[in-house]
């Protein structure tokens, strides 16, 4: 079974702190994704990576950056956390280029910025 793990289930940070959210997948998937989930808005794509060191902006990249130095690991970085970044963050991975390939999700990190 595909496993996508995220480094923390719950995280509390202060405004202005630099925050790292880590995601690891164990199925050698090429593609990895970061979403944020907010009530009434569903999931919105922040960033996407289709290969090591490659990244693409999603729908809401402002205030975020990403890093993918190894195929299995995809990090989301909040350079200076703000209260409006309080949210649930979900990482996902998928195989190959076919547009109907399933995305596999991690359990999520609930981030609170005070």
């Amino acid at each position, binding site marked *: 079974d595909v496993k*996508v793990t995220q480094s923390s289930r719950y995280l509390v940070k202060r405004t202005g702190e630099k925050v790292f959210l880590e995601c690891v997948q164990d199925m050698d998937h090429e*593609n990895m994704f970061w979403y944020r989930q907010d009530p*009434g*808005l*569903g*999931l*919105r*794509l922040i960033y*996407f990576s*289709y290969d090591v060191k490659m990244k*693409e902006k*999603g729908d809401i990249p402002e205030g975020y950056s990403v890093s993918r130095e190894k195929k299995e690991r995809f990090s989301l970085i909040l350079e200076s956390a703000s209260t409006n970044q309080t949210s649930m963050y*979900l990482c*996902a991975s*998928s195989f190959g*280029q*076919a*547009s*109907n*390939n*399933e*995305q596999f*999700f*991690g*359990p*999520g990190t609930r981030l609170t910025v005070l």
Partner: protein
Amino acid sequence: AQSVTQPDIHITVSEGASLELRCNYSYGATPYLFWYVQSPGQGLQLLLKYFSGDTLVQGIKGFEAEFKRSQSSFNLRKPSVHWSDAAEYFCAVGSFMFSGGYNKLIFGAGTRLAVHP
């Protein structure tokens, strides 16, 4: 622009009753459609997907969905709901991100299902 609408934010059904969750999409070409479920404290799990062929697709946990192009709908159904089905359900449409054909999922806002004993 592509979009997904789930008209019902909350639905409550009795255990054993039938269920239908609505999903409407806006997409220019033939869509790739997905239903995911998120149980409390969990990530999303794929229930089923449609990309071609038979418009009635079967998924896990006894769920099925029907693609109706004329109505731009992909409604999720289950004939008899179990208490363990209480969760949030997300409909999504696959969308090309760029010329490489990579799949971006556009999600609806979700429908939260409560099941009464």
